[in-house]
């Protein structure tokens, strides 16, 4: 018996009559984390981790019906026993464990295995069936520690005090991780934030994450040249009207995609820092092995590649998620 099935609105658990990260409005949604491609507005009720509540309400609306749960707390919805477990992706990100009768399924959502001072570490959750992401599911992807990348970023920033250093990164998760990683290597100097980054950072501060001091760019007087400052902004601001505020800045992008030269050159950033909040190849494989699952479904990105490798090399019953049912 399958605990989960694929529907037009996304993964559905019949026993709980609930969808996981539904792609369209449904009556009951279980949310792994608050990124826009996982948490969408318009559902009847939401179930999510308590730590994620601030960002979720910020993005989906103050008055959504939200049942917030601490990590590892088991709860029942109809015939299913559910619990959230840390995924190490961003603040409040979760894997969802579903137990129906004697079957345990785990949906990882997005996750990573390397340490991140801005969120709870990944928790290994044993299961029978694992549904894993594979955004970076190729062996060319192997991450350095956040500490090392933060050092590179600091050197890049401090290496050119004549210009503004404009570092592009996703506004929820990556930006706050950068602030926390910089803090961890002893950078105390204030960092400036684009408005979209600022909004989310407030919730991280409320959650008590230790981060370098920061301030919205808009707080500074227009005539301030911002020379020598580090500014964090979302990729959508690259080459936008907002960027005109800076005279000849040096630009960089922090993302796992920056591992490949062509990807960086195409986007037109001068520098690329390889920093990801997803698992790298080894991280993906380790996670599948650690879970003890005999059946694995792979979704997002390189699902065919990872599934084939798990099947050939590790003898697992592994398939792309679109083959579930």
């Amino acid at each position: 018996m399958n605990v989960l099935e694929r529907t037009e609105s996304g993964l559905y658990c019949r026993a709980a009559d609930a969808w996981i990260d539904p792609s369209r409005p449904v009556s009951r949604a279980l949310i792994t984390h608050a990124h826009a491609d996982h948490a969408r507005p318009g559902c009847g009720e939401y179930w999510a981790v308590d730590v994620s509540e601030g960002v979720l309400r910020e993005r989906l609306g103050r008055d959504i019906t939200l049942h917030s749960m601490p990590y590892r707390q088991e709860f029942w919805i109809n015939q299913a026993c559910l619990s959230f477990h840390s995924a190490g992706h961003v603040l409040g990100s979760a894997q969802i464990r579903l137990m129906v009768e004697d079957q345990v399924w785990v949906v990882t959502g997005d996750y990573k295995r390397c340490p991140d001072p801005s969120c709870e570490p990944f928790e290994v959750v044993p299961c029978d069936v694992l549904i894993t992401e594979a955004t970076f599911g190729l062996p060319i992807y192997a991450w350095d520690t956040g500490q090392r990348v933060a050092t590179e970023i600091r050197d890049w920033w401090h290496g050119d005090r004549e210009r503004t250093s404009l570092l592009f990164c996703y506004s929820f998760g990556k930006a706050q991780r950068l602030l926390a990683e910089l803090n961890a290597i002893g950078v105390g100097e204030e960092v400036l934030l684009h408005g979209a980054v600022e909004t989310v950072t407030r919730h991280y501060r409320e959650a008590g994450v230790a981060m370098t001091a920061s301030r919205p760019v808009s707080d500074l007087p227009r005539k301030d040249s911002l020379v020598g400052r580090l500014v964090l902004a979302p990729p959508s601001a690259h080459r936008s009207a907002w960027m005109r505020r800076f005279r000849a800045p040096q630009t960089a992008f922090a993302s796992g995609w920056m591992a490949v030269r062509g990807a960086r050159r195409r986007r037109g950033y001068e520098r690329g820092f390889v920093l990801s909040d997803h698992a790298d190849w080894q991280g993906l494989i380790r996670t599948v092995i650690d879970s003890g699952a005999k059946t694995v479904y792979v979704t997002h990105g390189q699902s065919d590649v990872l599934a084939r490798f798990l099947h050939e090399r590790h003898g697992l019953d592994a398939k792309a998620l679109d083959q579930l049912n």
Partner: protein
Amino acid sequence: MDAFAALIEELDQSTGTKRKIDLIARHLQQANAHDAAWSVLLLIGERRKRLITGRRLREILQQASAMPDWLFDDCQSHVGDSAETLSLLWPQLKSDIGGRIHKPSVTTWVNQLRHAPPMHWWMEQLLPALAVMEADEQSNTVLAIWESLPHERLFLFNKLLTGGFRIGVARGLVVKAIATGFNLEEGLVLERLMTPADASEQWFRSLTAVATEERGNRGPFPYPFFLASPFKEETIENSDPSEWWVESKWDGIRGQLIQRERGTYLWSRGEELINEQFPELIEMASAIPTDTVLDGEVICWAEHEQQPRPFSDLQRRLGRKTVGRKLRLECPVSFVAYDLLERDGTDLRSTPLEERLEQLGDLQRLMDTNTAKWRCRLSSGQQLQRWDQLDQLRKEAVEQGAEGVMLKQLHSLYLSGRKRGHWWKHKRDPMTLDAVLIYAQAGRGRRANLFTDYTFALWNQQSEPTSNRQLVTFAKAYSGLNDAEILELDRWIRSHTLERFGPTRAVEPELVFEIGFEGIQASKRHKCGLAVRFPRILRWRSDRIADSANTIEDAQTLCDQLAKRTLST
């Protein structure tokens, strides 16, 4: 190698042209002359013998690791470059492999690496030695070097070894950097770069030496070609029409014919000596006075015919090392001279075109009568009187087998490279067909992991209610869409994939594109029986559905019309 590697890294990380020029100039000033010579050659992408193929490097890594073939393929199509793929994979695989390298045989090389050997040691000692090693020794040495190099150097090492080193620095940029760094005129640097290069201290010193040589009489070597830009009506429509000379633009290959006491040299625009492919032109040149340099077009054109043959005839000769009797008869060649760069050893490039043309006319009259004299044709042209003549002139030129007209300012000097404003090319409008996108493949370099190589198809029969017609591959095209369209199309391709064959995806046959091309002819090698020249995307026909695309029959009609036009004269 460290200084060069640092330069490459910095170039890679800077987007401004001026900054790149400064970086290169500073590097060349600081490096020792022998290493700097290598830097120049590598930067301008001087073709070198490939030492080891990318495939062999991959084999080395694969034999030592347990990574399956298909996984390599997937990585490579994702990265778009084999040397880079290997350098990204090595750090993952090295722990499995490290213990298995047989050290003793390779220690000498690896020991030398510790002393930070200069660039020319890599290029002249290590890499050539690696290339000729026995298979086992070769793989052990490559593995040992990979192991001892810092990760950020792997990419450069692999690139140098596979000979595919190109980092997107234009030749013109290197010329500018040398000119800036050593206080030289750009034209002079370009000229010096056209003489044979060897990676020696001496060559670099002569490349960057203070200007003392007399310009002109360059022995067997060509002058830098002056190139025209695509016609932009708005930029010149306000000028006086009588400033302009209009002549046919022939569809052959650009050539510089140099006649010296010691011999004749025919150079293509790609700076290749093409004497052997065109022996008749070399024979013809004996009729030209010594120390003459002509600029013109090499083209297939028979003695008594009014019109040149199509480009495909010329192509038959280009691929050959030597040309036999049969080919000489079937594809007769001519040289259409349209400029005179040197006469009696005098460099005429700073003389206005008007005067050069006059001298060119004199010269042809002076030519000895030898049996091959007809092969040197003088390009005919005329001074423009009114702008509204231009379209008619272009139409006539096309009817006479040219691909359009050239517009040259009568007072223009013969400059080097592409300097806009003096010479324009005004080609005929391309032929077009609407075709359906059926396959897409990821690009390379900065288009890696983006679907940018497209295959288009035409219907095999007209639409009829009952017919069960099919799409047949017609042409591949890579250019013509802007960045935003490429991204949009990439997303569409990913969500409309029907099937994957390795890096290629078959997509739902829905999107229609207008494909433009310069020529079309029968071909046995192509599925639809036709081959087109310079196919490119003219526009995305989002207003059309696949059913309304053109048929092979339509393409055949174009082909027939073109053939008729050529035969009719």
